[in-house]
């Protein structure tokens, strides 16, 4: 057993240095040089202010914007400092109640599934065209909008 202790400790130290410091720092350096926009979180900058990330959904409530899906993050929706899904099970009364209320809030008898359920991350930046049709704000859509499989709710 004693003959195992030296290689265990020395190799753990050496492999830690290579895979835990050298590797991530080298990737960081390469990424910052070659792909700085992506490596820093795909920030969207408008007149010098960061207005969001291309990839992260945001909560909108004014009618001129696309509204995102409900979000399970706390304490506020679309908290990108603490991602979270609801994790509630399919037979949970909490789920049925919450979704039922969301359907009622759309003012229509049925709603698209993405419009009334929370995403896995709580930061889902996309909505489906179906969801737009169900939304009361859909009438305010710009006329030039081309049909796509999904629409962004992040500033692009």
């Amino acid at each position, binding site marked *: 057993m004693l003959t195992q202790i030296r290689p265990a400790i020395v190799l753990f130290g050496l492999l830690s240095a290579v895979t835990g410091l050298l590797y991530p720092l080298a990737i960081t350096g390469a990424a910052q040089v070659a792909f700085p926009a992506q490596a820093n979180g795909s920030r969207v900058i408008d007149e010098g202010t960061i207005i969001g990330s291309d990839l992260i959904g945001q909560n909108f409530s004014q009618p001129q914007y696309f509204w995102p*899906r409900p979000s399970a993050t706390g304490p506020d929706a679309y908290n990108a400092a603490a991602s979270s899904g609801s994790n509630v099970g399919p037979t949970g009364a909490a789920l049925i109640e919450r979704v039922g209320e969301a359907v009622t809030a759309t003012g229509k008898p049925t709603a698209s599934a993405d419009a009334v359920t929370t995403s896995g991350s709580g930061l889902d930046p996309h909505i489906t065209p179906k969801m737009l049709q169900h939304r009361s704000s859909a009438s305010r859509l710009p006329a030039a909008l081309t049909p796509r499989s999904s629409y962004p709710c992040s*500033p692009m």
Partner: protein
Amino acid sequence: MSLIGWLQIGFVLVAVLVLVRPLGLYMARVFSGERTFLSPVLAPVERGFYALAGVKPEREQSWLGYALGVLAFSTAGFFGLYVLLRVQNYLPLNPQGFAGLAPDLAFNTAVSFVTNTNWQSYGGETTMSHLSQMLGLTVQNFVSAATGIGVAMALTRAFMRSGVSELGNFWVDLTRATLYVLLPLAIVVALAFVTMGVPQSLDASFVATTLEGAQQTIATGPVASQEAIKQLGTNGGGFFNTNAAHPFENPTAFSNYLQIIAMLTVSSALVYAFGQMVGSRRQGCALLSVTVIMLVVSTGAIYWAESFGNPLLTAVGVDPMLGNMEGKEVRFGQAMSALYAAVTTGLSNGGVNAMHGSLTPLGGLVPLFLMQLGEVLPGGVGSGLYGLLVFAILAVFVAGLMVGRTPEFLGKKIEAREMKLAMLAVLILPLTILGFTAVSAVAEWGTNSILTPGPHGLSEILYAYTSAAANNGSAFGGLTANTPWYNTTLGIAMLLGRFAYLVPVLAIAGAIAKKPRAAVSSGTFPTDRPLFVGLLIGIILILGGLQFFPALALGPIVEHFVMLAGQSF
């Protein structure tokens, strides 16, 4: 279900099968000690490591020596990680100023990453300093996978050799698996992830002012480097709380393809490498077909169940056309969420791109069942191959009983000692899973953590212990697992699932290496034909799965019928 969905599933699986052969052949060379195209760069580094560690690479170990090496290295890794997590507040690269972890959480997390489980009782972006993510978790993502590869190679050599007790040198296998296989792949995959939008910086977060004037703090960090090895090493531990559902871990449909391909390829290539090394590529392909068949069927089952939607939600006015979208991301949709869920549990990955706890009862049953089969489809890096070989040994034994001949696998007679050890290994999972689940389902300290009561509550507990014992790491996230009871017992389950399985496997390897290799005769049961593939699937389902059927009946199966009856809890 849609044609596009199935085309995507087919595309990913074909991409993996294309990569399996070159990578498998490369790994066979690496672990036979041959030169590779990376040797000019890496061989001097490797020699330096051995010199410093006092390792003589040509001196091989018996099964016991190999096992002691694994245990010694894992122990060193555990203490190193535990201390790092406890004192992260005193160390650099902690931009958010996170506190050190509580003892029970540090124990759970250290065990979790050393055993290649990556169960996470914490939320990454609200708990871990960058140094802990890099020097703690990323390191174990590499070396726990490399340890698994080592054990798989020791068992492979046992089938290649006869009349010897040496199985290779653990320190050499560990070093070569890390430097020659995992590190180069991780560099390529990490940079690919960055191009797709996965962040890689030492900043903690940045603040955005939304168009409506609200402030949004967006957490980032060295994500891509960890994401790459998380998939390649079938670890599954995410940088962020919501793992690969988080847009920074998995930003696009393409990054999602790459994630699934990265997690499947190394394990599958090891199975091919096994065939190459024992001199029968057909054997490797036969084992691979078992995994492909079972993965496709499982994916189809999840895809079907999720596309059907949740009738309780349909009743309150949800259009079922998109299927069950709770806990899922729009950019992946049902097909790629289903494939991810099947692959992450058929392997011992445990990363998730949709919240498994919010899957429909049958959609959640499949991942649970796949883990209970022992994760052999094709399983974790290394651990999957040796798990699959244990089932293959059991399959030839059953076949031998049916025709009244001594069972053989690849020319090695399978006798009482190997059978006892194989059964010992296979019984660890039900013992650990069902034992701990039973206690937690009746005791207050177990049931207090349940989020969704009713049958789903039992599923939450069963899933947690299954995930821990099978070294998977995915969760029905409703369960509040960051309590002393769950942190401690899940830690014990992970240790048993890893080491109480791995040591008997090495003992089998030791016994098999000593046996002479018998010539193939007309009475030999061929193990590289469709008949064996079918038999092996049957054995995996019956031996691996049937023992859990009563527990599954009380959890997801009851929940399914209750859901159809319109009841909620």
